[in-house]
């Protein structure tokens, strides 16, 4: 706790959210994720208390914020804003979907990181898995239980994004370069829902026993199938269109006769 406050007191950051604004969306969608273990906090936006008694592992939002610049401050729960342990200024643009994450850096220093969430549409039958390394831990590989890599050499505070068939996957976390035999977390069953960007945060301190995984979903990104194949055509109603059948027969006959005649002439 002492370490947290000492480390954080010197931090003041400008977080510039940038994004490709979608013309139709006004304002930004902003979520807040608490990934610092052992500290319940309050969150202030522009000096106003916005989240109180925000627990580690909690996900808040999304808030719809008009485009603009925001002062964020994080205090220990019940403390005054003057004693903020983390502060940041965030510029948000229209159409942005972002997550503000309070978390530990690899060396255990608390920080705030802003990630833009990928809200591009996802093909039918697929989901999106976003893995964010926001834990006090070295670089890792994320592997399926059969050894297939999902992300390699993922380090704090970075992310890996992949679109995959919507399904439940058995996956684990190994030190970078490791194998399934080196899993330090898992394997666990992880569902990737269709049409959803499922964001998985590694939080806490791996060595200190406070490690956990936190899930945030950005849903509604799915797209519809383009076609519905519901007949083999050998029985129902329309059948082969009669004109098509008649013309095809006429064509075959006429071609056959004319080529025979031409052939005969050349003999």
């Amino acid at each position, binding site marked *: 706790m002492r370490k947290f406050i000492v480390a954080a007191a010197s931090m003041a950051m*400008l*977080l*510039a959210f*940038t994004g*490709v604004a979608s013309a139709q*969306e006004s304002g930004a969608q902003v979520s807040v994720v608490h990934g610092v273990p052992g500290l319940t906090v309050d969150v202030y*936006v*522009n000096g*106003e208390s*916005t*989240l109180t008694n925000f*627990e580690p592992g*909690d*996900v*808040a*939002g999304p808030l719809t*914020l*008009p485009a603009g610049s925001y002062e964020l401050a994080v205090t220990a729960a019940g403390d005054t804003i003057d004693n903020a342990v983390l502060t940041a200024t965030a510029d948000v643009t229209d159409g*942005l979907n972002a997550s503000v994450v309070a978390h530990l850096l690899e060396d255990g220093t608390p920080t705030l990181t*802003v*990630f*833009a969430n990928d*809200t*591009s*549409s996802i093909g039918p*039958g697929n989901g999106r898995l976003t893995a964010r390394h926001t834990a006090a831990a070295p670089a890792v590989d994320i592997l399926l239980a059969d050894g297939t890599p999902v992300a390699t050499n993922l380090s704090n505070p970075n*992310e890996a994004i992949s679109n995959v068939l*919507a399904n439940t996957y058995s996956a684990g976390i190994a030190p970078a370069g490791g194998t399934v035999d080196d899993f330090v977390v898992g394997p666990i069953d992880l*569902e990737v829902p269709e*049409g959803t960007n499922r964001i998985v*945060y590694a939080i806490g301190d791996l060595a200190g026993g406070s490690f*956990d995984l936190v*899930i*945030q979903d950005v849903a*509604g990104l*799915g797209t519809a*199938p*383009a*076609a*519905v*194949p*519901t*007949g*083999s055509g*050998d*029985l*129902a*109603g*329309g059948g082969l*269109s009669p004109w*098509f059948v008649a*013309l095809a027969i006429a*064509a075959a006959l*006429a*071609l056959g006769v*004319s080529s*025979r*005649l031409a052939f*005969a*002439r050349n003999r």
Partner: protein
Amino acid sequence: MAASLARLRPSRKLPSVRLVAAVLGIISAIALGIAVAGLVDGGDGGVSSRVVEEFGDAPVAVTPAPASSPLPPPQVTGGELAAPPAVPAPAAAVPVRSGRIGELSAAIRAEPVRLEIAGLGLAAPVGSVGYDARRREMEVPRSPGEVGWYRFGASPGQPGSAVLAAHVDFNGVAGAFYDLHQLEAGDAVVVLMDDGSRQRWEVVARRQYGKELLPTDAIFARDGDPFLALITCGGPFDGRRYEDNVVVFARPEGAAATEPGPA
């Protein structure tokens, strides 16, 4: 045929044979051209522009859901900060939940297991189907007597469209939706769910769409008022597939009476 051709073979009268050959050649070319055109666009005066509004109001896509391009990663800079504009802080009611993976509860929803349409004498099992990524189509049950429910959309009664598709025919066997095109406004449709509940629906609209015109965003809508979309194939068969989809829309019984149909 060979015999009759042999009789045509007296090749001393070259001009007339040549004439016959030419005429037949022209006819064959025209016929082939029309037949090929028929294969391409359905041979029905351009099937790709066909929507047959048989009755009722079909749903339209509620949210166009523009595909926004992926955002670049945010930049953290240490540059000078312009004076922040006076943007009001958001209202206090922010939803908060634990995101810890151990507390993640999969949304449990009832799923359809059986479809009954008394007016058609239909009682068919319903199975869950997904998406065929290779063929880029909704999956449809292999068994012609089974109805497929698109599990990536709404379950019947949830907001949006619950899509139930079945074959009109398959390998010479009539499919579960062989008679779907006979449904009329007000006909009752019953869906049995796996929690034992029994949902009563009422037909409000029927459409026949050229396959290229199938309004998939509306038919697979994931929000808005609940409706059923019952889908099968219809129209002429072009040798490879049907040219149309027949879609019957239903609203919860009672809802249909107070609303003009799916908006």
